């Protein structure tokens, strides 16, 4: 979230699209209720299903799954055509005036530089700004240059007419225009719309671009950085924000630092490439401090063994030969027998990943599988024959499976990061059952054993194992407090203010924040964005002062938010160029008081830079402004374009005739998966999967109270389709895709209505996840038996939200 949960109360309009906050985040959704009650806010829900969020919405618009870019692209066209943009914001805080390089182009569904054989855009060199003789990007404040971002944007979306969008999305035009009109009202300075989205946007082959389109709308309306505004990703798990912040992904290091690729053999070139210098005069471009963050990380990991001489142990980091080894890639490798060992720490991939048959077959080719979990997961028993639910030949599966019991939240101390980026500390209340241990103790136990084996026997490249810094008082179980102090960071030598020479932190002291990090090895911090979570004053994450002196809901004394305890990112943009809030009464966040920036939030800005200095609010970007044009950052192009789901019910892309551009031309797809895509002739219904409010993922099927409230697997079918198929509520139905089938109870509902798309009738089938072959709820089929193994072009997130099925009465 750019903003945070309680801040939603400041919204004038709430758009829930690509998510179902009432269903999946009920306690956060309360702040929508508060915005409605105390701010007269309206709630709009756009979703294929009339869902729980829609049940309390002021306006609901149905949409065909997977077509959100068309809907939002049409909205961009509408905002520009009707002059409903926040002009002062857009002109000053976005890249509309930046001139794009000659050579950038878009034709028949593809941007320039496409390589069909590679299914990607290997040459993105034209996707950038024209750079002038002064080394800065060229801008045209008059917006008259034909290649300035504004004109390119206008041209790109001029194709998204209401008629065409309605035909793609199936949203009745009248409803769609009502939604667009309500959204357009927030272009007024001081009015804010928040967008709340979740995996309903992420889990498409164009998921990242859907989210980008939402962000572009928010920029045009001047809603980013505003209280009650922002782009709010509602994360699905309690600490997936934190684990992502800590870089637990194939290609990342903590704090969104990135691992080198094979070609990056030279340390200074690696740093240089990531040290972005300002693209416009007077801009902060905060990533120019990259090396300080990187060196501090390597000091936290390798201690004294990381030195200037060995480039801070640069060669001890693995290098990537591909963009990343995400789960789809790794399971494809596993399926092909290239992986021997696998660990699942609190993760249930056989239920959570697409195409269960492929995932199960892949696991069966492992030599060893290690499960660390508080619960008996389906994955831990993937080898067990559970009849129709998991019909495997146990004896033929040669994988050795270890199952290690772990503590749950109630039995350990530590911190979690919520969607609003708050790091909140929690405390242990009881001992775990039996012999269960913490994940920390298990990782430490494994590492201590491995290190001992390498010390004794030697082995492949032992240096990083032997030199990993392990200063913990109990080597077999480091304390959560020790680890938190380590990622927050400390001074290894006295750290001084370069300007005044004053000592900011003495050797051995905790650092106050990332501004004190140094690139000379005098500081250690395991995750720079978490720096300041545990200072010399103690554990900031455990703070419990919920005072809200301005009534803006920012509660700066509660827990600690990254970065630097800021609650709303880009909050400088909540003030106009002169430094005063766009709405000085109801939307006060930060402002210039004549000497410095301050207010109800920690400024996301250089605190002493006066408005007249011209520094812009988006300080992480070298431009200083937000990007409507994504330059080379996105796999499919700088402007989002609507592409059909890989399994499309209409079989064509109404925007262009190019067969290469029906679905995302740069999406991740493996050959063996291309072969199991279904066609609309055989699988005519658009299916989408989702969570229910009564259950959490695949955990609560182990909890009696949750099982009582939603005991048995079901699918949702609209009344019209049910009538066509002779299905009544409560009947058992078989839902099949080209990858397998499930059987479940039919819930027949008015809430799913047929949509008219491209002249055809499209029916949706709604398929909740949550069931499996272990648990106290009634056993069921794993829903991901049905879903396709294809990923977004940027994040490789599987397309769980749009695929094709057939439905029959059993």
């Amino acid at each position, binding site marked *: 979230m750019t903003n945070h949960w309680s801040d939603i109360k400041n919204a004038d309009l709430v758009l829930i699209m690509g998510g179902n906050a*009432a*269903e999946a985040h*009920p*306690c956060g*959704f*309360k702040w929508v*209720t*508060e915005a*409605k*009650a105390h701010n007269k806010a309206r709630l709009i829900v756009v979703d294929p299903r*009339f869902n*729980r*969020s*829609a*049940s*309390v919405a*002021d306006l*609901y618009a149905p949409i065909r799954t997977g077509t959100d870019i068309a809907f939002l692209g049409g909205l961009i066209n509408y905002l520009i055509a009707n002059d409903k943009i926040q002009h002062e914001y857009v002109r000053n805080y976005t890249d509309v005036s930046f001139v794009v390089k000659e050579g950038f182009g878009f034709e028949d569904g593809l941007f320039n530089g496409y390589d069909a054989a590679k299914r990607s855009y290997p040459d993105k060199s034209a996707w950038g700004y024209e750079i002038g003789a002064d080394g800065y990007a060229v801008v045209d404040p008059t917006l008259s240059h034909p290649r300035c971002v504004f004109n390119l944007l206008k041209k790109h979306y001029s194709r998204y007419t209401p008629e065409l969008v309605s035909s793609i999305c199936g949203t009745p035009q009248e409803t769609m225009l009502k939604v667009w009109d309500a959204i357009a009202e927030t272009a007024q300075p001081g009015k804010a719309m928040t967008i709340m989205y979740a995996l309903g946007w992420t889990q498409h082959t164009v998921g990242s671009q859907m989210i980008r389109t939402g962000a572009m709308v928010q920029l045009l309306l001047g809603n980013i950085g505003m209280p009650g505004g922002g782009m709010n990703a509602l994360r699905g798990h309690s600490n997936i924000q934190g684990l992502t912040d800590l870089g637990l992904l194939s290609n990342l290091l903590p704090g969104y630092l990135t691992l080198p690729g094979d070609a990056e053999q030279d340390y200074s070139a690696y740093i240089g490439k990531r040290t972005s210098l300002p693209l416009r005069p007077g801009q902060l471009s905060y990533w120019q401090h990259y090396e300080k963050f990187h060196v501090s990380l390597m000091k936290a990991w390798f201690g004294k063994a990381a030195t200037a001489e060995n480039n801070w142990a640069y060669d001890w980091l693995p290098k990537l030969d591909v963009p990343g080894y995400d789960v789809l890639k790794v399971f494809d490798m596993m399926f092909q027998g290239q992986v021997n060992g696998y660990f699942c720490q609190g993760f249930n991939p056989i239920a959570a990943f697409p195409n269960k048959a492929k995932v199960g077959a892949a696991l069966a080719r492992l030599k060893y599988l290690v499960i660390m979990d508080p619960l008996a997961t389906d994955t831990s028993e993937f080898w067990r024959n559970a009849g129709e639910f998991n019909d495997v030949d146990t004896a033929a599966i040669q994988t050795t499976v270890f199952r290690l019991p772990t503590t749950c939240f109630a039995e350990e101390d530590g911190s979690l990061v919520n969607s609003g980026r708050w790091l909140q500390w929690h405390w242990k209340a009881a001992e775990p059952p039996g012999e269960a241990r913490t994940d920390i103790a298990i990782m430490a136990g494994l590492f201590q054993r491995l290190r001992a084996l390498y010390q004794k026997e030697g082995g492949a490249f032992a240096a990083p194992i032997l030199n990993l810094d392990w200063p913990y008082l109990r080597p077999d179980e480091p304390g959560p407090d020790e680890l938190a102090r380590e990622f927050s960071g400390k001074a290894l030598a006295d750290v001084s203010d370069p300007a005044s020479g004053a000592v900011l932190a003495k050797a051995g002291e905790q650092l106050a924040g990332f501004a004190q990090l140094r690139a000379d090895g005098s500081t250690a911090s395991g995750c720079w964005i978490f720096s300041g979570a545990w200072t010399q004053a103690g554990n900031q994450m455990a703070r419990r002062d919920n005072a809200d002196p301005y009534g803006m809901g920012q509660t700066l004394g509660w827990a600690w938010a990254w970065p630097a305890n800021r609650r709303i990112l880009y909050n400088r943009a909540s003030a106009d160029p002169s430094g005063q809030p766009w709405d000085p009464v109801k939307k006060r966040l930060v402002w210039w008081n004549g000497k410095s920036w301050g207010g109800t939030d920690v400024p996301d800005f250089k605190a002493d830079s006066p408005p007249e200095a011209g520094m812009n609010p988006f300080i992480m970007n070298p431009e200083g402004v937000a990007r409507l044009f994504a330059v080379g950052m996105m796999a499919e192009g700088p402007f989002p374009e609507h592409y059909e789901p890989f399994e499309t019910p209409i079989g064509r892309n109404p925007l262009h005739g190019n067969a290469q551009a029906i679905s995302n031309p740069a999406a991740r797809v493996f050959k063996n998966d291309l072969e199991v895509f279904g066609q609309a002739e055989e699988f005519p219904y658009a299916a989408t999967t989702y969570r229910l*409010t*009564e259950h959490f993922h695949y955990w609560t099927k182990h909890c*009696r*109270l*949750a*099982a*009582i*409230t*939603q*005991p*048995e*697997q*079901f699918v949702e079918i609209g009344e019209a389709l049910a009538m066509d198929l002779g299905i*009544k*509520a*409560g*009947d058992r139905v078989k839902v099949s895709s080209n990858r397998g089938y499930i059987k479940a*109870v*039919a*819930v*027949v*509902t*008015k*809430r799913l209505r047929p949509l008219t798309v491209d002249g055809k009738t499209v029916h949706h089938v709604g398929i909740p996840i949550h069931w499996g072959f272990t648990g*106290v*709820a*009634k056993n069921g089929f794993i829903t991901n038996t049905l879903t396709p193994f294809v990923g977004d072009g940027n994040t490789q997130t599987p397309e769980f939200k749009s695929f094709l099925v057939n439905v029959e009465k059993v």
Partner: protein
Amino acid sequence: MATQDIIARSATTTPMPQVRQPGEVAKLIDTSKCIGCKACQVACSEWNELRDEVGSNAGTYDNPNDLSAESWTLMRFAEYENPDSGNLEWLIRKDGCMHCAEPGCLAACPSPGAIVKYANGIVDFNQDKCIGCGYCITGCPFDIPRISQKDKKAYKCTLCSDRVAVGLEPACVKTCPTGAIVFGSKEDMQVHAAERIVDLKERGFANAGLYDPDGVGGTHVMYVLHHADQPSLYAGLPDAPAISPLVSLWKGVAKPLALLAMGATVLAGFFHYVRVGPNRVDEEEDPGEPTVHTVDPSVHVVDPNKQP
């Protein structure tokens, strides 16, 4: 219980204490804020240490399928196509005891003290005294109490009398994520409801209103409805609830008649006991009838050992 004196007690003629005057409490359920998440259901069962059976899906979101002795509250879902606006509405109502000011269950209950009403408005069942006759069900215009198959006693929402007694709100109120369930003095809840109704009218629900039905003397669980003119849209919420005619008859006609016959009956019973010992009176109804009235009340009541 010092703060919640009993002001009515089933099948009891002894005058009730009248001196203390605690304020009345109420729970307000705003159907226009309710997302049907069932947090109230779970919090209720968790607090009250109830674990109903894991049932099955009958083709709806209503799970469990009905109230039971181990599910004291339940979300009921109704899909309504509003003919005026053309909009689909998903009307979701938390069902459970309404804590009526004139509780039909209490009026109908034949067992002394098995149902009590406190001055703060809570109507509570005392299972120690419950004889399982099921009259409370007959008496209830909202079809709330249920007889347990485990112990043949009647159960329903207590409005968390144990929490309210120590100054807390009921468990369902505390947990409600959207604030659709709120709790306070009955007066405050009426004021809050009035504000909500203004907001709903402004959002196009011209018939929004408060459900606090007179037929039962008002309730200590009230609803804000978008369509207060049609309560039955909400999964059959009674449009005009009143105490069952069976109970009225018992109090109006049958009871005087019964009292006339009573002396002889009791004497007969007493002499029967003296001469023969305790006896069970046969069911006067065909036991094949599907009914909750399965336990013979006389077994429990006619216990000479307890007589003074």
